[in-house]
């Protein structure tokens, strides 16, 4: 499985309140949530972000609330991957459970810049910055999580058991 797209770069501690503000949590429709994705940190996001594009951020991405609406909004906005130095733990779980590909790689997260073209190979955990012609080794998922991802998320994983 691979992802390739243009990078939208953010800093430390991107919280779930800016990913999807609570004023929109009266809806749980992913497509509707996507129209407000990242609104309070980047008003242009929803206009510029294309299907397949990639979010890159520094440490503690997705901190704050447990709202699954946050990864759902990012996935429905068309993101093919989120790369960060570290993820907040509930966001990390939620992303795996709903099938939003994420990868931890401090070196890539620091070096990759806004608008770079990036390719990610999930099988090897390799991240390629095609603009800078650089390559990074991301943290591969432990085998247990690979099983959930291979099943297409936690729902399918449980159904298969």
């Amino acid at each position, binding site marked *: 499985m691979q992802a390739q797209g243009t990078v939208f770069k953010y800093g430390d501690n991107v919280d779930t309140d800016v990913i999807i503000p609570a004023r929109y949590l009266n809806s749980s429709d992913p497509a509707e949530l996507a129209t407000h994705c990242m609104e309070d940190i980047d008003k242009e996001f929803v206009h510029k972000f294309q299907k397949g594009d990639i979010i890159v951020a520094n440490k503690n991405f997705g901190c704050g609330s447990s709202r699954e609406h946050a990864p*759902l909004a990012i996935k429905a906005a068309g993101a093919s991957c989120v790369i960060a130095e570290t993820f907040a733990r509930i966001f990390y779980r939620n992303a795996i459970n709903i099938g939003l590909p994420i990868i931890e790689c401090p070196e890539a997260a620091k070096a990759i810049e806004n608008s770079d073209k990036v390719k990610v190979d999930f099988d090897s955990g390799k991240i390629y910055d095609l603009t800078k012609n650089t390559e990074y080794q991301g943290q591969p998922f432990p085998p247990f999580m690979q099983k959930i991802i291979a099943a297409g998320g936690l729902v399918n994983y449980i159904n298969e058991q």
Partner: protein
Amino acid sequence: MGMTMTQKILAHAAGLDQVTAGQLIEAKLDLVLGNDITTPVAIDVMDGFKKQQVFDKDKIALVMDHFIPNKDIKSAEHCKQVREFSQKYDITNYFDVGQMGIEHALLPEKGLVVAGDVVIGADSHTCTYGALGAFSTGVGSTDMAAGMATGKAWFKVPSAIKVVLTGKKNKWISGKDVILHLIGEIGVDGALYKSLEFTGDGVADLSMDDRLTISNMAIEAGGKNGIFPVDEKTIAYMKEHSTKSWTVYEADPDAEYERTVTIDLSSLKSTVSFPHLPENTHTIDDCGDIRIDQSVIGSCTNGRIQDLREAAAVLKGRKVAKNIRCIIIPATQAIYLQALKEGLIETFIEAGAVVSTPTCGPCLGGYMGILAEGERCISTTNRNFVGRMGHVKSEVYLASPAVAAASAVTGKISSPAELGL
């Protein structure tokens, strides 16, 4: 090798003698929690399961608390969906308007969580129950759905930070000051993926309400859980509130910790977190002249009876400053009633504050106290992120109930000492 308190609880729930940090386990759940925002998503997820069932109708708690009484039509639809689900599966612990309270104040009060339990909740502040010596942590709606269907969840066994509390707090210092100070020390990702295990002779100086506030904000340091040892106060609390049997776990003397942080409670001052991260802490003496527009006293962090008593002790015989809105939200119906009996509600209304039915409301910018552009609020809630309580250019300062009440009187961030208290 020795285990931490958290590791011992998880080992037991997984049916194992020993676990180590980093190990992936599947644990049996004693309770699965959801609210009016996260449960609708979980119900939709459950529709995708082959087996349409809940694992135990007595071990699921569904609390309508974020946007209720329904703030708009969409919120009403969400609550209706959860209400119908609860009726379909005959969920014992479904709490709607009239019985509800803010979930993390309500569940301990109803005796639904006791020491040794393993609890997941689709709300990040589920870590609150660590105050009772339980393992509890926040998850998303898909995990909640899986938990409701199977009664199990997977966990990565966390490593831990040992937080040694010593000494006794000074007047007007509360659990909120302890946890804000700690977050200021270790940062908003200082405990990422880890347990915060509180210990030391200072624990005895903390009331159960203090401990619930401290465990509640473990997530604000990135923590998986924040847990206290079980002592006489915990046991007295459980005897008063619960009929469930409990199990006391203690960390092994040779348990491994990634680091140890020591806090001398007697050295703590009232602490305020400046926008836009809980780690931006200042002691009250270093706050400077910060005018406010609103003061909120409530939430799962600080809407308990001790919090209301402290606020009332400050507001008694005083007036909320002109042009300041002071909004006070008892966290549960029982707390509301207790405050009424003690005359606290009368004190609040005479001071010029408003008192609301239990709701998360303004904490997450839902309703009942939204901020306009450029406005500032001092709040006993738990997050001060950009746009958290309203306009993206509004600001939230986090503090204790005593400081929030004193600030409502002066119109600027103030300690009770400034009022001669």
